[in-house]
């Protein structure tokens, strides 16, 4: 019953993190968007058996989380919700791909298990980077950054409108759903008939709300663009941030850091 409220609360919590004021938060949103995209592409471009090559990439989320004061446990919980999907799809790899590619002592590990582990690690990395991006930037700033980088204006306006009303309508949906929950007994009344008129009413109310917003817009002289006071400044800090991390990602992608480290240590021992 509280699942919609729970989701909404979760949503608001993540949104609230963007109000932080750390060095990372103050960076120009474009820098953070670009770095995150480079990160995702580099992670995804690793071959499916290159498990070790993925590990250095953990440095980025770990650094961002610590420097931007994001509660790590909260983030870990959010990631844990997504992982079962990756596990479900990756599960078939160990079954279908049984050729041994890795030997630890007498134990041969099949390619399927390696690629399964790599799918899970990829999922953790990409999911955490997306969540970190929102937590340190905030949705409106991401939209503004994307618009500056060439996203068409109508789509940017659409994203901002959606963002403004998502909380309002989700709360309304939660109310409606709670009301139905309180009136249904033993699963009766949760069927399609009630659902249809319930969602239909929600849709009608949404439609009327849009008409009211339109009139309010006209009254205030809305011209199709949101004006914000936000100033963009892509300075030395941003350049250093983008170049530094991109360099690290590309190096981590090209040089097998983990392998080198391992041979160094096993060589010494």
């Amino acid at each position: 019953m509280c699942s919609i409220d729970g989701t909404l609360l979760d949503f608001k919590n993540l949104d609230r993190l963007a109000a932080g004021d750390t060095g990372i938060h103050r960076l120009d949103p474009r820098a953070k968007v670009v770095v995150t995209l480079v990160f995702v592409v580099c992670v995804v471009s690793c071959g499916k058996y290159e498990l070790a090559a993925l590990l250095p990439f953990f440095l980025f989320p770990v650094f961002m989380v610590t420097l931007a004061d994001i509660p790590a446990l909260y983030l870990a919980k959010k990631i844990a919700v997504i992982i079962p999907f990756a596990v479900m799809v990756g599960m078939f790899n160990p079954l279908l791909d049984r050729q041994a590619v890795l030997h630890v002592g007498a134990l041969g590990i099949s390619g399927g298990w390696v690629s399964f582990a790599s799918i899970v690690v990829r999922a953790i990395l990409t999911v955490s980077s997306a969540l970190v991006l929102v937590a340190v930037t905030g949705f409106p700033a991401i939209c503004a950054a994307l618009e500056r980088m060439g996203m068409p204006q109508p789509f940017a306006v659409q994203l901002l409108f959606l963002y403004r009303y998502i909380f309002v309508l989700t709360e309304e949906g939660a109310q409606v759903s709670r009301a139905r929950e309180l009136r249904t007994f033993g699963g009766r009344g949760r069927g399609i008939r009630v659902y249809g008129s319930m969602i239909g009413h929600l849709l009608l109310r949404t439609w009327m709300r849009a008409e009211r917003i339109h009139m309010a817009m006209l009254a205030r002289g809305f011209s199709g663009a949101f004006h914000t006071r936000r100033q963009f400044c892509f300075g030395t800090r941003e350049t250093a941030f983008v170049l530094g991390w991109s360099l690290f990602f590309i190096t981590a992608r090209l040089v097998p850091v983990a392998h080198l480290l391992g041979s160094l240590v096993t060589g010494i021992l």
Partner: protein
Amino acid sequence: MHMADALLSPAVGGTMWAVSAGAIAYSSAKVRKELDDRKVPLMGVLGAFLFAAQMINFTIPATGSSGHLGGGLLLAMLLGPYAAFLTISSVLMVQALFFADGGLLALGCNIFNMGFIPAFLVYPLIYTRVAGSAPGRKRLVAATMISAIIGLQLGPLCVVLETVFSGISALPFSTFALLMQPIHLAIGVVEGVVTVVIVTFVHAARPEIIRGAMGARPLGRRPFRAVLVSVFAVAILTGGVLSGFASKNPDGLEWAIAKVTGAEALQGTEQGLHAAMTALQKKTAFLPDYGFKKDGNRGGRNATDSLGTSLSGVVGGVLTLAIVFLSGFLLKRRRPTA
């Protein structure tokens, strides 16, 4: 049905990004040209409505499981293809960022599977043709059901194709398709029923909403064909360029890795097979080369994996992770005092 970053190769992800970005740019231009400023708040609020409605479940009779609205088709019926496409895309973007449904690179795929297909393929090619200009109740129901089912067959089919082309999952096409399609046939039927119920309710309460949505858009053949042609041109172009990268780069990368580690990776063993595969790839120009793991590329990797390098790999992996998290921990410790 969200496609995930973890299963995606950069070539496939990049191609779908280019396609979706092109479709967004085109739809934005169209919506701007329509100059109907009533649609601006309507799109925003309907996006939020879709988001909320997807969270509300209902019980599916006789199965005990529960379902919810997908809504792509419903939005296309209410807003027309261009505005609906933008609205669905915006919802998917919020889901990708806040709930990590899918991921950032997979966003292109998801926008295509769940936005482009209902708005630009199913709605104009199937729904409007079956329903006609002034449909009665029966025609409306039939058109909605057929469109919902076809839309929910095409979407998962694209998920399967994208996954197979990416080659990260070992699932072969036929197995994956056999897993996905029948499930989505049922989901499509449910989606159709739900959409019909909602549309008939709205039609009874405020018929002008449904009727207005139908009359407002004289969807000509020509501009629509232009969309399709340009989208596929973009797809083929980027697919070609990116797969060129994908088939060239890993070889270069492996060469670099071999040089750095000092391991002599057996490049291009099985010359014949490898050459044939590359030729085939150039012809199809869509497959990144990770898919063919048993030919030259991977053969080289397997051959170098002697006991020593594996052990060092495992030790190194553990060490790297330890260093990463330790540095994060130290940073955290140092900050309050600093």
